[in-house]
């Protein structure tokens, strides 16, 4: 019967599939969701102040000619507490740091700053993850390099580890030029 020919093709297709599976298994899995907003201007927004310690944050604050680090965080997020020393070091280096507090409460935030320090010049309250969605952030913490014209230049997903600091500083420098 003519069955022989097409059954060979099925066999070939099957082993191609096994090859694909093997290839994917052998690669480390990258589950991060990269923002498609990198390279684009940050959408216009205005967030109210998250606590009475810092003023709120709007898109105009970011387009003041200097590059900024925008840290998307929350007091209820454990890695956000873990990255606090690194953010403090960036602040000592003179980096302009602004925060976006996602789905947070003023009291919790104040306690969080009390405990881990407050490296931010401005902290906007993003109550319903509105800004978070606009800039393509899928979780906390994430840190964005935004240049002086308000264009998102880089997205750092996950906590800032000590070894990430030189990279972030280099990207800020790039954003300046």
């Amino acid at each position, binding site marked *: *019967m003519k*069955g022989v020919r097409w059954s060979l093709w099925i066999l070939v297709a099957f082993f191609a599939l096994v090859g*694909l599976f093997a*290839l994917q298994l052998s690669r480390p*899995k990258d589950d991060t969701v990269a923002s498609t907003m990198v390279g684009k201007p940050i959408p216009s927004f205005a967030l109210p102040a998250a606590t009475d310690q810092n003023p709120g944050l709007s898109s105009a604050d970011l387009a003041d000619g200097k590059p900024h680090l925008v840290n998307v965080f929350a007091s209820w997020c454990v890695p956000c507490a873990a990255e606090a020393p690194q953010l403090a070091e960036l602040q000592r280096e003179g980096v302009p740091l602004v925060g976006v507090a996602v789905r947070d409460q003023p009291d919790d935030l104040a306690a969080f700053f009390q405990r881990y320090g407050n490296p931010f010049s401005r902290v906007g309250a993003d109550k319903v993850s509105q800004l978070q969605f606009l800039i393509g952030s899928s979780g906390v913490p994430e840190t964005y390099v935004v240049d002086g014209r308000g264009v998102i230049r880089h997205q750092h997903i996950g906590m800032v580890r000590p070894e990430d600091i030189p990279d972030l500083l280099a990207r800020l420098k790039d954003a300046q030029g």
Partner: protein
Amino acid sequence: MIAEFGLAALWLAAALAALQLVAAWLGQRPGGETLALLVRPAAVTQALLCGVAFVMLLWVFARTDLSVLLVAENSHSEKPLIYKIAGAWGNHEGSMLLWVTIMAVAGGLIALIEHRLPEKTMLATLGAQAFVGLGFYAFLLFASNPFARLFPVPAEGQGMNPLLQDIGLAMHPPTLYCGYVGLSIAFSFAVGALLTRNVTPEFAKVMRPWVMGAWMFLTVGITAGSYWAYYELGWGGWWFWDPVENASLMPWLAATALFHSASVLASRDALRTWTVMLGVVAFSMSMIGTFLVRSGILTSVHAFAVDPTRGTFILALLAINIGGALALFAARAGTIAEGERFAALSREGALVINNVALSAVLGIVLLGTLYPLVTEAFSVRVSVGPPYFNPVSAIFVFPMLAVLAVGPLLRWRRDRLERIKGPLIAIGAAGIVVLLAAWLMAGIALLQLLGLALAAVVAVSAFMPLRGRSLKRLPLPVWGMAIAHFGIAVALFGMSVDSAFTVEKLTAADVGQSINVGPWQVRLTAVEPVAGPNWTALSGRLSASYKGGPAHELVPMSRTFWAPPQTTSESALLTRWNGQLYTVIGGGTADGRWQLRLWWKPFVTCIWLGGLLIALGGFLALVGRVAADVRRRVATRKIAVRRAEVATA
């Protein structure tokens, strides 16, 4: 000791599977008749030992024996007993043991009762079953030992995912595994038939109840899984084309085609190649599904603990079992004799279209599920969702449903359309009336419109084959077919109405505020804290009235579990005959209001009701076939007894 006893039983079962394989192999050779006698007892003993191992696992979970690693990782002494026991298979190792146990029991059962096929084919089948089983034993014993000990013994277990503490979900894996394993039996029969060049109507008859049973379990599993996702995830949707949903849908599609094919082979001796091929494909889809879920190469809401060794192991099993069977098929496909011929316009012809369409949908789902993997190999990230799956599968599903309406009315071998003119006009009229009626209601998209019309067509046609027949004497399988086809119409109706007429409201409400959603007026009367056995919750009290009627209370919750810490939303549903009110409460907003999400979903319950009707149809067909088989056995025995009496007289 219990754990060691279980492990020993598992090793012994594996040894018996090896014995079964070797004896089946050597027993086929001249002079191997004595060895061949070992095969069936080995299969039965293997089933018993595997059952013992599984009971031991249930036992250590029931006792919360924290010196067993699996218990410590997945259980907690404060958990209700039923979830402690269900926890035994709510994890990778335990679920694999469950799989192997069901497979061994099914293998033991065919060894015990099946005598219709030539012994040679039976040996090859049991050998194939042992071969597949051995792979899974190796996987369990070397890469996923459920009985591994933990030292030092921890003071408390690490709990179980709170999302999984749900009775429906406790039953979900066993149901799906019964389906997958039933397909492994069909696979073994197909391999046995190919090896011994014995693709006959008898083979189809023997295989059919297993496929039918597997298909019924898969139907229930998919229906229940869909309902679970619907009320537990709190997103208001019932199908997300998630890789894991697709992984269960693909074997179902293959099994649907398989038992229709097997029916043709059993009663008409046609579609031999189709039946064998689908027998191999159906189990392949189960294994590919298992691989996709367990290896973690696709991102899905069903995340199992991912371990690359396990992925590699399952991939190797997949390559050996399925690759081997496909190679065997390629080698033997030419030797399968062509069955009985039939005209294009005949019931066989309609069933071939059914096979082709189901295979096409299977291909579409497989492609959509794997496409992200293919592009990822070229470092491009994509995700494939409803905009692809819905219209592309509809291209094949809609014509298939039209054929489904006509096919059962056709005669075997050859038919003329004039003969069934009356029923065809009735079916067509039903479709056109509904199409026009739905079209007049503004704002319905094309797919929903066609879905409604086809639901009417299929519903009317489902009972046409019963025309002019005595309902009392109608065989159960015919009832089963009518009910299952009607179930498809009911489910399709639910899907179309839900997607066309659902009303959604997302709002932040003050206590005391009223919200209108569709015909409902919902008032948030109170928000209060509640405590459960292992969670605390924020619960909202809603008072809902339908078109100004009496008020009903709904209590959606946002639960926080503490072991492990996690928040889930418990939706509250109110079911009426014509739909469901679906409510979810989120957290509070900064200004003291509460996030509420409300849906009115007309006739959404028809989706699962339809699924259950489909499964019920399968159940009736299965009972009908098994009862006929039992009657036949009893009759043969009586004849044998009578003959013996005559001979001695």
